């Protein structure tokens, strides 16, 4: 009988909390524990994926996820649901924190001689994402995006480039960057809807 109980507790522990976006916002505003747990369970993996791709370092990404999480929690008053979705606000917080870290002086000094360009691929290959089959299917679909459009979107969204930096990196005019970003997102909209 004890083993059955233990199994139940294990299962109970593993349950990820999921709320609707409105419920989540309400719970965070009320500073409820369930709000913090749901916030982590629902969005930490998506945010972590973005942060890891921008900073390219696992430990640093974990620190930044913590910074992001604290900032979301502590400055939640500045989130206005009339202006946009919760995730948009959170992912931009995460991206800004990550980019600021990359540009900070002590970070540059520490990683001057490190080749960080090639590690994106290894990160994608090494870490299998144990989420759900739906997400795995989505990733396959995403790979069908037109490569030149995807390249621009990834630089901005996952690497923290500005549109100007992306234009310079790829050697294309700023206008083309804008068009390609729009094209990539249009394709995503078609894929996901």
């Amino acid at each position, binding site marked *: 009988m004890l083993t059955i109980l233990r199994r139940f507790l294990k299962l109970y522990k593993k349950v990820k909390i999921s709320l609707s976006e409105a419920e989540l916002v309400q719970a965070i505003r009320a500073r409820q524990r369930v709000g913090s747990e749901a916030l982590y369970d629902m969005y930490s993996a998506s945010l972590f*994926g973005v942060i890891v791709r921008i900073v390219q370092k696992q430990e640093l990404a974990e620190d930044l996820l913590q910074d992001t999480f604290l900032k979301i929690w502590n400055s939640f008053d500045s989130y206005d649901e009339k202006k946009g979705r919760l995730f948009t606000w959170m992912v931009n917080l995460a991206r800004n924190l990550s980019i600021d870290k990359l540009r900070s002086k002590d970070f540059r000094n520490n990683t001057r001689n490190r080749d960080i360009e090639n590690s994106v691929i290894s990160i994608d290959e090494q870490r299998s994402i144990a989420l759900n089959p739906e997400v795995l299917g989505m990733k396959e679909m995403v790979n069908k995006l037109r490569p030149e459009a995807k390249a621009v979107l990834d630089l901005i969204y996952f690497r923290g480039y500005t549109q100007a930096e992306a234009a310079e990196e790829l050697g294309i005019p700023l206008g083309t960057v804008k068009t390609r970003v729009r094209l990539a997102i249009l394709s995503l909209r078609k894929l996901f809807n």
Partner: protein
Amino acid sequence: MDDLRAYIESGVLELYVLGDLTSGEKLGVELMLKKYPQLKSEILEIEESLQKYAEAHAMAAPESLRSRLLNSVNVSDATNETLIVPVHKNLSFYKYSFAASVALLLLSLIAIINLHSQLKKANSQVAILNKANQKFSNHVNDIEEQLENTTQSLKIFQKPEQYKIVNLKGTSNAPTASLIVAFDPRKAEVMVDMGSLELPVNDGKHQYQLWAIVEGKPVDLGVFDTRTGTAGMVKMKSVKKAQAFAVTLEPAGGSSSPTMDQMMAIGNI
């Protein structure tokens, strides 16, 4: 409207969602949003697709990070949590199913213990009933046997033309003794009615012996005990003619001739 389409197609809304605009450009977009509420749905779709794009590239952070992070934020008292958040979707499902399972388990245990004690009670009752039943059927057996014996005796006593009923009376050796012997001269049948037997109880070394007096001489008809365990008619050796019957007390197994001073009862036909 063409201007609006051109505005959408410029890609500025995408960059707005990506956060890649100067504060001036951002303000411009927000003004446009106020002016043209239909732009809102456009923004929403861009947001949704970018969120799903991020989800498609999600990476699970180490398990240890979860508790570290959750412990680092300040939360309010747990008491009012349930009041404000009405739905705990997944969690509550497992919570309730767990609680229900535990409750069910406890109920089952109680039911089993209950049933067990009831079964025990029932078993002991069955044992008692069995005992009573045994007693009863023994009693019935006894009565049946008695009835059979009585019926047998009755059959004999109801046929005076066939059986001669001879009453033997006690001698001076046993004044209160008496017994009844039934005698059928045609079949040469002699029976002692144990039901009406009144003789002193014999010990293990002695037995009563029945004699027929035929033309003045004793003829051995066999031995019997006061305790034969039956109340019916006991058949003795046969004799055709007899004038009287007598009973003597002899050493166990009987004697070839009667010990006259141990004569206990005698009766003429």
